[in-house]
């Protein structure tokens, strides 16, 4: 029996479950990577998990692997690298945002970029809800995120020395429709495919790709909606405006979601002018949306 330690992000549980199904005789130990390490002690503490472990399946970048392995004194494990799956094309409105006053991310990390922009410009719920439409999505580039998302994922595979496996992974999952719950939460069948591929570096042969694996989806607790207009553009079923932020926090319809979001920003004492979307070109939102709500360009 081997001891396999799995250190990924929120995909850790799914990876473990699939590995357990593929290697039932092995001990599979989830051990999410607390990266970046808060201190050297923290890193040493983490390295203890790898003592006398046979395989370390890890999301860690190459440099981090080296530094952690240097801290493992006994029985260094073999390393199998696994990329985190991220794909934004189904959810291009999902963004991270921060409070400029504190530098902190919003309490609930996922935000609608349009909602963030609207809160910043003190729009009310009705005016904001009207901004969720096909024309705006098109002009904001929401219909054109596919190529960028594929390129990002391909790059991730390449940087994890899995370039030759990318087609085997992606061409399979892209046939399954909207395969992400959110930009960084893949559906379980995506993780199944990914783990089957890396399992071939852990002793399984190519026949594993045909094996039926049934495990629970640990990430379906948070589901960002595939907006109907985007579903239409990608010729996919399942479009909706139902936000499932957690199993007990579900919002049907744009207005209900906006009401929650705006209230949450107020509760967190984020002044409108301090709410900033991350990794988005705010000027583009200004150009596209301002004329529609009577704001000067």
């Amino acid at each position: 029996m081997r001891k396999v330690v799995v250190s990924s992000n929120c995909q850790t549980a799914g990876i473990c479950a699939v590995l357990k199904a593929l290697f039932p005789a092995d001990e599979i130990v989830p051990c999410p990577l607390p990266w970046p390490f808060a201190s050297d002690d923290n890193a040493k503490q983490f390295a203890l998990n790898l003592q006398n472990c046979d395989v370390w399946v890890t999301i860690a970048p190459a440099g981090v692997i080296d530094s952690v392995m240097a801290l493992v004194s006994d029985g260094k494990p073999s390393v199998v690298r696994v990329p985190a799956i991220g794909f934004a094309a189904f959810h291009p409105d999902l963004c991270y945002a921060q409070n400029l006053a504190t530098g902190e991310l919003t309490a609930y990390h996922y935000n609608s970029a349009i909602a963030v922009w609207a809160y910043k410009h003190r729009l009310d719920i009705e005016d904001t809800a009207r901004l969720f439409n096909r024309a705006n999505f098109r002009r904001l580039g929401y219909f054109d995120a596919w190529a960028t998302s594929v390129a990002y994922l391909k790059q991730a595979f390449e940087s994890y020395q899995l370039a030759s496996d990318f087609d085997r992974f992606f061409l399979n999952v892209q046939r399954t429709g909207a395969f992400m719950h959110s930009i960084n939460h893949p559906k379980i069948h995506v993780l199944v495919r990914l783990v089957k591929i890396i399992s071939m570096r852990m002793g399984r042969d190519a026949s594993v790709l045909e094996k039926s694996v049934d495990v629970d989806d640990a990430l379906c607790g948070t589901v960002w909606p595939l907006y109907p207009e985007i579903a239409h553009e990608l010729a996919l079923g399942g479009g909706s405006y139902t936000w499932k932020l957690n199993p007990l926090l579900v919002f049907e319809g744009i207005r209900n979601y906006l009401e929650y979001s705006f209230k949450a920003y107020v509760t967190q004492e984020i002044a409108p002018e301090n709410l900033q979307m991350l990794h988005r070109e705010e000027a583009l939102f200004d150009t596209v949306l301002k004329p529609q709500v009577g704001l000067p360009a």
Partner: protein
Amino acid sequence: MSHPYAKLEDYQFWPKAMTASAPGHVNPALPMQKMILPGHRIATIGSCFAQHLARHILHSGLDYLVTEKAPEGVDPVVARQRNFGVFSARYGNVYTVRQAVQLFDRAFDAFKPADVAWKKDEVSVDPFRPGIEPGGFQSPEALAEDVVRHLACVREVFVQSDWIIFTLGLTEAWRSKADGAIYPIAPGVAGGVFDPEQHEFVNFTAGEVAADLCAFRDRLHQVNPNAKIMLTVSPVPLAATYENRHVWLSTTYSKAALRVAADEVVRKFENVFYFPSYEIITSPAAGNRYYDDDLRSITELGVNHVMRVFFRSCCQFPDEQESASVAQHAIDGLGKDMEIVCDEDMIAQAVHGNASPASQPAVKQEDFDEALYLQLNPDVAKAVEAKKFKSGWHHYELHGRREGRRVG
């Protein structure tokens, strides 16, 4: 090393044209020019799939030509039921090319079929558009009057159109032994009586279809030299075959024959083009999701893909201003979001299972034990310490209650 494929376009290579495209964006119409311009009058004719095209063109802002309009005062719903506006004239589904040629000839008095009316119960039915008037015509005379009106409108379709979009549906048909008149539906199905002495089955060959297409094109060219024809093949399989073989075999034959004929005619005439409806719907990239559960009807997703390609590849709209560079600019930041690792709550939730915490009744603020809440929920305590929340109560009100957090 140079070779004949070295400088070909992306759409000529399977990986770039098929597997690399976003879902819903495989475009077999490339490299078609945008030839349908603002102001062009567009008519549709053909099998049932042509109704989808007609519906979308009608609502697209393009100039959809309808020469046979409902009488004034008729309720729009009733008009639709009576098949006004379903096609450019009220000819119903025209499944075979031979039927279209004969329709043309009837419109220009070059063909007068012997069969003019079928009986169905107490009413009369047009043998060449048996479903056009849901309640039938009250008398053969009323039907004859309507046919005269109708054929005048058909004439106008052919004379006025800048474009005729012709959806090729079937090769199988029933015809009159007397004069070769083609019926859209077998006699006896929607009216009339099937008589093997008078009626016979025919399954046109690809060569016959091509010859009929040439005949149709030539006739149209005579009355309207500037008109162009856009051929497309319906992806809807046969509902039934009269051939003694599996319906799927007959379907594949029929579609193949129509496709071959269309290709031959497009290569022959400068004013005839092909639009790949059939290819879009049946493409492996569509993964069968463009067929409904009956494996025959086309889903709205599929129709939308066809129309998206049609409008973007074939049509020029007056307000076309989309800027790809702006769109690209908008998504440059998307990849960076992936670098943000999930917060601890999400990781814990994923590792420890996704079972929903038991729902619990809301606690009022006066009953809320702040210290106990922070003790039971150390991640909240950390968040409060980091000033993400003003207090435990603040967190509980915002998230904790719905998350089913322990309060005591």
